[in-house]
């Protein structure tokens, strides 16, 4: 076998793990030392081709390394050069070619430093006074092998860490899914067991109310409070079941604009009652999106009602839709909620703005947490936005909520557009 003929690319290994053609970068300013080293290196008993490029300065060597980063198999380095001395010389070369094995050529006086540099990442050191061809060759071979193994190990380790991370993420998702599954079962069970007694209290309260003694105003008041309590308990139970049962979607191609218009119609009464102006900005011919109509309608009504409730004295309700390509910073923002959208995805953005009082900045991070509410006790279940976020995540979209600089809140939903455009589908 002719190793020189079969493996000419640097780094490609022959049977004994040495490149067939050995490319050495020799960095040595002492001409006599350089000659001696070259001489010994060429004294190969096997027919290996040895190419040596010698540089007398650090800057020259670094230039050579950056010009041809893959050319060399090994560096032989004298630490004392005209433009650099000591460990600094090693660090500079190591920095310029982190993947190259470096062997320190050391005088007797700096042997201690040479051993120190080996601990810093140099592969080996050779005492200039004791150089002889066989040890040089062995040192070079071991240096290359060690460096290659350590590179391989680093890569394998990185792979392992990545896989481990993936596994951890999957495990977390699994635990989360299982948790939701059992919460779902629990919630459904609790709902059935609680709503039945609520049904009895409801009928009982109604029965008493119908026959209430008009002479005792407290009786009507008490029954009214009991009635409110039933409604509240029922809303919480419904929210809990909603939250935990929202696991599956009934997806169909849908038009976000139509959905927005329809949802607006459903809250029209509230809008008129509170004298709220509606500022609509709908982009025509948006691509379709895969949505669960009932659940997305639930989302929009929830958000619209939140906006309306934030403006008890009236104000402006903004609703807008646009189609666009997702930019990276938007993805980052979305990633807070879910990491399903990718930069460059065609998306539909739906925004709902109100001109209300906004959300206190210390509360805004908790806004999607279960049972968190900024509404007065008894006014909100604290599950509305939690369910909304859950539904949006099931749609592989993202939702964010922020205070607008001009006052009030902006809720932004980003959904991935379906492949076909609206026109294409109707053709």
């Amino acid at each position, binding site marked *: 076998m002719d190793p020189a003929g079969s493996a000419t690319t640097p780094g490609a290994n022959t049977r004994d793990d040495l490149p067939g053609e050995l490319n050495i970068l020799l960095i040595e300013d002492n001409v006599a030392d350089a000659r001696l080293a070259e001489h010994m290196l060429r004294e190969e008993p096997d027919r290996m081709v040895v190419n040596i490029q010698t540089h007398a300065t650090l800057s020259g060597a670094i230039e050579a390394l950056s010009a041809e980063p893959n050319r060399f198999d090994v560096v032989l380095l004298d630490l004392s050069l005209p433009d650099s001395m000591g460990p600094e010389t090693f660090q500079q070369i190591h920095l310029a070619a982190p993947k190259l094995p470096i062997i320190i050529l050391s005088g007797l006086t700096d042997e201690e430093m040479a051993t120190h540099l080996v601990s810093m990442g140099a592969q080996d050191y050779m005492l200039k006074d004791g150089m002889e061809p066989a040890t040089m060759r062995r040192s070079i071979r071991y240096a290359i092998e060690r460096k290659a193994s350590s590179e391989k190990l680093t890569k394998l380790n990185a792979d392992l860490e990545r896989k481990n991370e993936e596994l951890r993420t999957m495990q977390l998702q699994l635990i989360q899914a299982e948790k939701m599954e059992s919460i779902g079962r629990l919630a*459904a069970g609790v*709902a*059935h067991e*609680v*709503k*039945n007694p*609520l*049904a*009895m*209290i*409801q*009928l*009982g309260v*109604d*029965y008493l109310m*119908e*026959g209430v003694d008009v002479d005792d105003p407290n009786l009507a008041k008490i029954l009214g409070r009991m009635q409110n309590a*039933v409604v509240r308990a*029922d809303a919480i139970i*419904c929210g809990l*079941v*909603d939250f935990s*049962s929202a696991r599956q979607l*009934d997806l169909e191609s849908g038009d976000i604009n139509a959905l927005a218009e329809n949802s607006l119609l459903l809250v029209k009464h509230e809008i008129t009652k509170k004298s709220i102006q509606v500022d609509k900005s709908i982009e025509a011919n948006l691509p379709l999106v895969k949505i669960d109509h009932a659940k997305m309608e639930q989302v929009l009504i929830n958000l619209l009602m939140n906006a309306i409730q934030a403006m008890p004295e009236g104000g402006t309700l903004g609703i807008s839709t646009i189609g666009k390509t997702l930019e990276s910073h938007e993805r980052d923002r979305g990633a807070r909620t879910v990491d399903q959208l990718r930069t460059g995805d065609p998306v539909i953005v739906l925004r709902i703005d109100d001109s209300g009082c906004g959300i206190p900045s210390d509360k805004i991070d908790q806004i999607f947490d279960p049972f968190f509410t900024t509404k007065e006790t008894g006014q909100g279940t604290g599950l509305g936005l939690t369910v909304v976020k859950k539904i949006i995540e099931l749609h592989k979209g993202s939702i964010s909520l922020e205070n607008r600089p001009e006052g009030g809140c902006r809720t932004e939903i980003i959904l991935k557009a379906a492949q076909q455009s609206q026109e294409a589908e109707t053709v």
Partner: protein
Amino acid sequence: MKRVLLIDDEVDFTELAQVALERSGEFEMKTLNDARDAIDVARDFQPDLIVSDIVMPNKDGAELVRELKQDPNLKSIPVIVMSALLNQNAVAYKEIGELDVAEILEKPIKLDQLRERMRAALA
């Protein structure tokens, strides 16, 4: 007075609903707590309307409605079903929706609404 058969596994509920619904004088109520007896009782009582719970231990509301609709003498009686767990349970809702029922109600329900729906089903 219209004859109404009310089936719910909760004794407290049927007792309460009977008293509450009979007060207006429109309905004559008969209550049952086990749907297994419902067909026999219905044949005997000949109600104008049947109001049944859905989730019950021995026989559920859906099964009862299916049997009622297969019985030539009972199939024309309007049926109202109600449950504490419907809106959130899409599968159950769909299953019930495919049956021939006059009304699907969610518990808790207000007394006046219940009466109204019963009147509508009887009309």
